[in-house]
């Protein structure tokens, strides 16, 4: 197939961007969940 490299690069990079975006959402969500746990523990300790 002519220009196979270009087709492959386009699809891989395109899906890569979406995948990285999804991974960043998951990471930020996990960081926030850890922050929630930390805040709940602080509140529990004070009580």
């Amino acid at each position, binding site marked *: 197939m002519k*220009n196979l490299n270009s087709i492959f690069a386009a699809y891989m990079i*395109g899906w890569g961007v*979406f995948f990285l*975006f999804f991974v960043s*959402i998951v990471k930020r969500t996990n960081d926030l969940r850890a922050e929630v746990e930390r805040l709940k523990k602080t509140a529990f300790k004070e009580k």
Partner: protein
Amino acid sequence: MMKRVLFGVVAIGLVACAAYASFYIAPEERTMGAIQKIFYFHASTAWAGETTFFVCFLANLLYIWKRQPQFDWLGVTCAEVGVACITVVLITGPIWAKPVWGIWWTWDARLTSTFVLWILYICYLLLRTLVDEPDRRALLSALFGVFAFIDVPIVFGAIRWWRTQHPAPVIMGGPGSGLEPTMKAVFFFNVAVMHVLAAFLIMERYSLEKTKHDVELLQHQAEAR
């Protein structure tokens, strides 16, 4: 939680089907050859991105009117997903253009206004990082979002007029124009699939924004004690 995982699996499955259809069902284009297949991914992502920005615009208007935080969350969510979509468009477009037309880029109306659209929504996201107070941030970014969305068709019109003064290579005709029926069907299938993918990403990003809001509330309660 299960529903979200299922939605994600369905979205990925559909993306795989769309790729299969693009490569094995759609016939090869006569002049460009196989590289034309990038068009199915590129153009459908562009449509999904534009729909996402339109939803962002509606969310901005609704926030200005109703002042409910959910509309602000939807606005920033759609802006981020839209920027991701247009990033893909701006990368896949030149990869397609270079082997076919010998140039990475040209300043025609569609490419230029897409680039400006991308920059405007990056500015929208940057603005949000620079305003600390949540209500102010929501209102100011909503107002900027309205300005930005209204500007894009004007940019398109201005560049198109400018191009009548300085003709340049036209990278492609309108999407779906002059497409053979099978190609058209595969294209619109890709459009639908990219919208499903965008909807999944919006859903995930929205729940992150909601969690952020809950954390901010907890932080305020902790500071109040």
